[in-house]
């Protein structure tokens, strides 16, 4: 797999956006889009890349004519589809053109589909609105497009409800719905962000295949450089409502001209594991032995069902080391984390913290142990109490253990320096901080108690790459200073490669592979690990080094 290098200079231009300016209505703020210009040719894929708030989605919504009314409006510029300016088209005509000329797929296929209608009729609805085909013809056409997007057993899926399908299948339905009328332009807004890597890879190749077959122009919006390397013909890098860099994929990845583009590329974690660190001969601070959690349900008389969320997890963790638990959604990695934190009680095995088994302690027996075990969650917007000041959040733990308030505040101030926030942050509330800052505050709160083990549950997954890099650096820094042991739970192999000493790969509740990060990533033994590595988007490219990765 290499970068795409197709030439489209002869193909007709499908979408041409020039000097597009979008403003927030009735407020005097700088424009959201400050003169965006680019074009897409027939059969070409243009990627819009940028971090949150850069204006990627606003560009796509403006093109679809779906800007939230009364909130945003187009102030100037031109959006031409096959030569016709869409900004001059009436909203009734625009309605007609959506689906026939331009279509869109979204990030979350579950919410984009109507949960109470079967998916087949939902696709048929597009035909009802825009064609005058007979019943039988419509059904045949729907089944045909469902086959084209490689859905298995199309007759059965035609009569399924969205919740009966997997995330990948739902996204296939969305793609079928978008492409059934063969639009000239497909806008894909982060269509694979909510999917597991292996599913993501299938959807990306499906979009490429459908594009080839129908000659669709694709505007692909993503924050993931790996995905860009995988599918883009040309790239537009956006920042703060402007395109700061644009060019063929190879040129942008090899010789970016704008500082911001270089910075973005530098921040992409490499799939090459970092050099392994000397394992200290210390005794493990935390050990799991054959740890498992089985959920049992069913009534007294009724049939009992068992779900093994995780089983047979065994590892040792020494101070100053980082253990990565890697897996896709539903693999049981979060169950392991919650068992270790004793937010749930495991059903099998032992958890040894400093040699004591904590697997079945009651909550009062657990309290003195809790200060040694701390946790950082995925969603920085929900992990701090929105009604509490930062000072109150940071001192919550120490005050619970009888530390005097002055001592706790002094420690909080010291940690604020380490996480590079000003001291007056103490008086402020979580909503006054960005996602990355909040995540750093959550980390500071976790280390206020000077724990021995920190469990980071997808702690950087919700963050932009550049912010992600800062948070990973912070964890590294803390580990060097305090010798804390970290359990790092992630679905992202790139992140795991950068921070973990050892890696444990989980699938359907079981550990399928375990070993040093270097060994697992370079020489995966288990088929699933190989599939996971094979599906990592852009695995053939070393973004920071600006060159292909030689394995």
């Amino acid at each position, binding site marked *: 797999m290499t970068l795409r290098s197709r030439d489209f200079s002869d193909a007709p231009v499908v979408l041409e956006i020039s000097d597009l300016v979008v403003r927030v209505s009735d407020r005097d703020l700088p424009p959201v889009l400050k003169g965006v210009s680019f074009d897409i040719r027939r059969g070409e894929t243009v990627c819009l890349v940028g*971090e949150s708030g850069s204006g990627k989605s606003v560009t796509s919504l403006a093109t679809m004519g779906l800007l939230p009314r009364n909130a945003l409006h187009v102030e100037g510029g031109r959006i031409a589809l096959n030569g016709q300016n869409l900004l001059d088209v009436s909203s009734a005509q625009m309605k007609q053109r959506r689906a026939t000329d331009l279509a869109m797929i979204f990030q979350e296929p579950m919410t984009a589909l109507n949960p109470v209608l079967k998916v087949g009729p939902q696709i048929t609805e597009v035909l009802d609105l825009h064609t005058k085909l007979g019943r039988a013809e419509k059904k045949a056409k729907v089944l045909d497009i469902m086959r084209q997007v490689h859905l298995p057993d199309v007759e059965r899926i035609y009569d399924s409800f969205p919740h009966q399908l997997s995330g990948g299948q739902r996204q296939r339905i969305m793609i079928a719905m978008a492409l059934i009328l063969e639009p000239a332009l497909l806008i894909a807004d982060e269509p694979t962000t*909510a999917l597991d890597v292996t599913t993501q890879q299938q959807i990306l190749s499906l979009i490429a295949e459908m594009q080839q077959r129908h000659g669709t122009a694709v505007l692909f919006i993503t924050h993931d450089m790996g995905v860009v390397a995988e599918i883009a013909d040309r790239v537009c890098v956006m920042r703060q409502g402007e395109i700061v860099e644009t060019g063929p994929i190879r040129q942008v990845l090899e010789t970016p001209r704008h500082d911001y583009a270089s910075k973005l590329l530098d921040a992409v974690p490499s799939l090459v594991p970092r050099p392994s660190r000397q394992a200290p001969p210390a005794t493990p601070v935390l050990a799991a032995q054959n740890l498992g959690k089985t959920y049992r349900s069913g009534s007294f008389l009724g049939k009992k069902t068992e779900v093994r969320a995780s089983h047979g997890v065994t590892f040792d963790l020494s101070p100053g080391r980082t253990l990565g638990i890697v897996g896709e959604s539903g693999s049981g990695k979060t169950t392991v984390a919650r068992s270790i934190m004793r*937010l749930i009680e495991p059903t099998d095995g032992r958890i040894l913290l400093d040699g004591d088994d904590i697997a079945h302690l009651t909550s009062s027996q657990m309290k003195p142990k*809790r200060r040694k075990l*701390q*946790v950082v969650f995925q969603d920085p917007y929900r992990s*701090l109490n929105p*009604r509490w000041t930062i000072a109150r959040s940071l001192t919550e733990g120490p005050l619970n253990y009888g530390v005097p308030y002055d001592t706790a505040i002094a420690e909080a101030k010291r940690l604020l320096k380490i996480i590079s926030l000003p001291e007056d942050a103490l008086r402020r509330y979580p909503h006054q901080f960005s996602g990355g800052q909040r995540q750093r505050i959550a980390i500071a709160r976790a280390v206020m108690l000077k724990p021995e083990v920190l469990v980071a549950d997808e702690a950087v997954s*919700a963050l932009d790459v550049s912010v992600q890099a800062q948070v990973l650096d912070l964890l590294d820094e803390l580990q060097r200073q305090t010798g804390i042991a970290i359990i790092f739970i992630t679905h992202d192999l790139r992140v795991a490669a950068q921070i973990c000493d050892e890696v444990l790969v989980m699938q359907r509740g079981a550990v399928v592979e375990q070993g040093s990060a270097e060994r697992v990533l370079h020489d995966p033994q288990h088929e699933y690990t190989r599939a996971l590595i094979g599906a990592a988007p852009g695995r053939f490219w070393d973004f920071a080094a600006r060159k292909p990765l030689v394995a």
Partner: protein
Amino acid sequence: MVIERPAAEKPLSLRLLSQLSPASTGIAPFIATILLLAVILLTVFSPWIATHDPLAMDPLKRLQSASGEHLLGTDAYGRDLFSRMILGGRTSLVIGIAAAATALILGVLIGLIAGYFRTADAIIMRAMDALMAMPSILIAIALVALNGPSIGSVIMAITVPEVPRVVRLVRSVVLTVREEPYVEAALALGSSTPKILFQHLLPNTMAPMIVQGTYIIASAILTEALLSFLGAGISTEIPTWGNIMAEGRQYFRLNPGIILWPGVLLTICVLSINLIGDAARDGLDPRMKKREA
């Protein structure tokens, strides 16, 4: 980034205030607030506004219609209707507010426990279901009959049937919020159960409680009137809107004002409180906001 959230959340008090300005809600809640304030002022200052002693009987002036001396006329014992009505409003409002406050406090406590402890939940909620299965006016009549018709027992009789509604609401909030990462983080930080209950979970129930509270006040005022009307309320020594109307029932043909005027005040009061409650609900619950077309 994947997750996008609306930015700043203003403090509850500010959101409530901005919600009640005519600019954001339209004119109805604004008028409702003014009317309600007028009624409250009228009743709070009733001892100074009243033109006569509300208990003084004057057999010579029974069932008079409105005149310069008696603004709204007199009742069957010659007592001044206007004075009785505004004093009675005071009792009615006090009963409504006290019943709502008691129902909220009890309901919040029971709801927190039911939402947080799974074993308690099963028992508490079945008891609440049982309470809700009985017609609330029958429970109220039974309770007044047991305890005698004092203000305290009327408040209690109105409170008890309202409690299950509050419990259900609080429990549902607790069930969602307890899964929030910041609650789990607090658990990991060694916070005690009361601390989690009262400092992390309780504040989240405040917004729906304010809304529910207004509805309970309105329905408590109505229930009090209904109890008095059915003869199960406070004796006429202490006038309330309910017992003034109950007494006026027999003399409806001679002086319809005895039922009409307290009824009008009662309606204004209940309607205003409900309108304000609706506005507060729309403002505090973003899901109820009208979607942009």
